[in-house]
C-alpha cells in the first residue's frame, strides 16, 4: 500500500537529484482512494493473488489503445510513455505532457491507468503525468508570480500584481486564516480545545472549519458526534461533513473507529495534504487545525504546505507539560509561524458536589510560562466534568450551552486569538513576492 499510494512523494524524497523539471503533477494514487463506483472513498487495500506473469511488452501493447492528447495516434507511438516499471503485479509508468495541459489531460491518465489495470496479471496500475521542459528554456507563463499570504490585512508592501500564484503551496483558496492548535505532548485536551475554540469563532460570527490533522488518533467524529463518509464532488475533491455549523474533515470519517491507521511518514504527509487541499472548504474565515501531539512529520507538513496564520499552544499548568509546550512553541518559531498564544487547559478542578476549587496540576503555570516566553496568554479552561461529559457525547459545550461559564472561557479565548490574528504584529507580514524576470 505504501509503495503505490505515495509513489510520487516517495520518488521525490528518495531521488533527490532527479530531473528538476519533471514535476509530479498528478499523484497517481492517493492514500485516500475512491472505490470503483466512485461513490465513497476507502483506503486502498491491495491483495496479491498469484497468476500468470505479464511482461512489459504486454503493457506497452495495451497502452497503444490509448489515444494521444490531441486524439491523433496513440501515446506509445507518440513517445509519451516513460519506462514501464513492473513489480509484484503492480505497474508504474509516466506520461509526458505539456505542463499547461496537465489538468485537462487527467482523463487521459485515468484511461491509461484503466487499460493497464484491466489486464490479467496486473493488480494495480499507477500512471503519473510529468511535464517536461527544455532545461535551457524559461518555464512557461505566467512569468511573474506573486505569492500572497492568504491573510493580507493590508496590501503587500511592494504592491502585488494580483496574479494567481503558480505554485500550489500558497494558501488554500477561499480560506482566510489557517491556525494550528498544538501541544508538545498528548493528553492535554488539544482536540476538545480545538472544537470549542472553532465553535467559539463561529459564535463570534466567523465562518469556521476544522481539520483533524491527527491521522493516527482522529477524534473529531466523536467530539462533534458526526458519522458518515465525505462524498467526492468532482474528481478527487471531497465535500467536508458538517457538525454544529462547522465544516469538518477528519481521517476518522475514512476509517472505522477502532481501525488503526498504520502508516509511515510519507503517507501521513500525503494524506494531510489531501485533507487540506482536496476538500471543498468553500469560503472560510478561519480553519482550525487540530494537530497531532509532538513535533514530527505532520507538524512539519502543515508548516511547509501552507502559510499558517498562527498557532495556539495548549498546555496543562504542570511543569512537565510546559516543557513540552515550549518545544512546540519553538518549533513554530523556527518556521516563522506566529504563535498567537498559550491556553491553559485543566487549569483547576471544581468539585461538582461541594464546588471547592482544587488546583490539581498547580495553577497559573501556563500564564507565568507565557510571560517568560514573551507570548500572550489567551485564557484558562477548568477541568470540569461538564466539559468532559459533553465532549465525549459529541455535544461540545460551546454549542450546547453557549452561555455557561465554561463556554464563555472558550469564547473569550476565541476573541483574543482573533484579535491577535488580525493585529499588525501577526498578520502584517506578507510573504515576499517571487518575481521571475
Amino acid at each position, binding site marked *: 500500500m505504501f509503495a503505490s499510494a505515495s509513489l510520487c512523494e516517495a520518488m521525490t524524497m528518495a531521488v533527490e537529484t532527479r530531473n*528538476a523539471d519533471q514535476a509530479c503533477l498528478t499523484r497517481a494514487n492517493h492514500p485516500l482512494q475512491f472505490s470503483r463506483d466512485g461513490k465513497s472513498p476507502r483506503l486502498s487495500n491491495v491483495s496479491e493473488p498469484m497468476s500468470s506473469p505479464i511482461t512489459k511488452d504486454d503493457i506497452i501493447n495495451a497502452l497503444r489503445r490509448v489515444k494521444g492528447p490531441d486524439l491523433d495516434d496513440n501515446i506509445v507511438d507518440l513517445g509519451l510513455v516513460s519506462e514501464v516499471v513492473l513489480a509484484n503485479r503492480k505497474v508504474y509508468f509516466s506520461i509526458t505532457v505539456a505542463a499547461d495541459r496537465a489538468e485537462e489531460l487527467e482523463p487521459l491518465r485515468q484511461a491509461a491507468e484503466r487499460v493497464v489495470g484491466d489486464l490479467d496479471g496486473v493488480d494495480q496500475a499507477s500512471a503519473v503525468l510529468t511535464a517536461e521542459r527544455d*532545461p535551457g528554456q524559461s518555464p512557461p507563463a505566467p512569468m511573474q508570480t506573486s505569492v500572497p499570504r492568504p491573510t493580507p490585512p493590508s496590501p503587500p508592501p511592494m504592491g502585488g500584481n494580483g496574479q494567481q500564484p503558480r505554485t500550489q*503551496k500558497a494558501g488554500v483558496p477561499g480560506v482566510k486564516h489557517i491556525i494550528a492548535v498544538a501541544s508538545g505532548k498528548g493528553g492535554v485536551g488539544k482536540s476538545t480545545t480545538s472544537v470549542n475554540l472553532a465553535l467559539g469563532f463561529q459564535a463570534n460570527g466567523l465562518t469556521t472549519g476544522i481539520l483533524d490533522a491527527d491521522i493516527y488518533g482522529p477524534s473529531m467524529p466523536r467530539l462533534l458526534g458526526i458519522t458518515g463518509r465525505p462524498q467526492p464532488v468532482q474528481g478527487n475533491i471531497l465535500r467536508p461533513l458538517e457538525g454544529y455549523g462547522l465544516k469538518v474533515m477528519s481521517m476518522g470519517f475514512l476509517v472505522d473507529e477502532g481501525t488503526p491507521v498504520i502508516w509511515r511518514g510519507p503517507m501521513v504527509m500525503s494524506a494531510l495534504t489531501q485533507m487540506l487541499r482536496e476538500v471543498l472548504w468553500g469560503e472560510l474565515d478561519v480553519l482550525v487545525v487540530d494537530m497531532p501531539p509532538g513535533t514530527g512529520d505532520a507538524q512539519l507538513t502543515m508548516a511547509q504546505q501552507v502559510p499558517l496564520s498562527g498557532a495556539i499552544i495548549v498546555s496543562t499548568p504542570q511543569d512537565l507539560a510546559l516543557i513540552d509546550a515550549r518545544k512546540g512553541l519553538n518549533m513554530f518559531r523556527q518556521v516563522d509561524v506566529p504563535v498567537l498564544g498559550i491556553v491553559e487547559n485543566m487549569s483547576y478542578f471544581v468539585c461538582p458536589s461541594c464546588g471547592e476549587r482544587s488546583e490539581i496540576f498547580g495553577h497559573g503555570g501556563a500564564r507565568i510560562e507565557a510571560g517568560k516566553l514573551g507570548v500572550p496568554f489567551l485564557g484558562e479552561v477548568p477541568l470540569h466534568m461538564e466539559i468532559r461529559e459533553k465532549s465525549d457525547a459529541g455535544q461540545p459545550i460551546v454549542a450546547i450551552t453557549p452561555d455557561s461559564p465554561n463556554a464563555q472561557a472558550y469564547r473569550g479565548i476565541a476573541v483574543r486569538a482573533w484579535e491577535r490574528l488580525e493585529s499588525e504584529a501577526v498578520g502584517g507580514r506578507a510573504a*515576499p513576492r517571487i518575481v*521571475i524576470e
Partner: protein
Amino acid sequence: MSPSSLWPTELRLSKDKSSLTVSFEDGAPYTLQAEYLRVRSPSAEVQGHSPEQRVTVGGKRAVKITNLEPVGNYAVRITFDDGHNTGLYSWSYLRVLGAKNDERWAEYLAELAEKGLSR
C-alpha cells in the same frame, strides 16, 4: 512574539537565471549568484549533519536557477538546473548569505583550492 525580524519583501530571479536578488524590509537588497547559492545550499546533501560533514561542491560555475517555490512562511525552495532542489533557504539564511557574501565566497574559493577542486 514577532517572527524573524529580517523579513524579505521580494525575491527576484534575473533574466539569465544566474542570480537572485533578495530585498529585505530594511531596504537592503542583496544579489546572490546562483553558483554561490548552490555551493552553500542549506540542504543536508551539502551541509551534512554537522560542520565536519560539510561537502565542498565544485564545478558549479554555470549553474542556473530554474524555480523558486515558497515553503510555508519561512523559506524558499530553490531548484537548480543540475537537479538540486533539497535546499530550503530560510529568510534568515538568505540574509546571512547576503551580508557575508564576500567573506563566504572567499572561504569557498579557499576550500576549493585546498581540496584541489575547480569551479
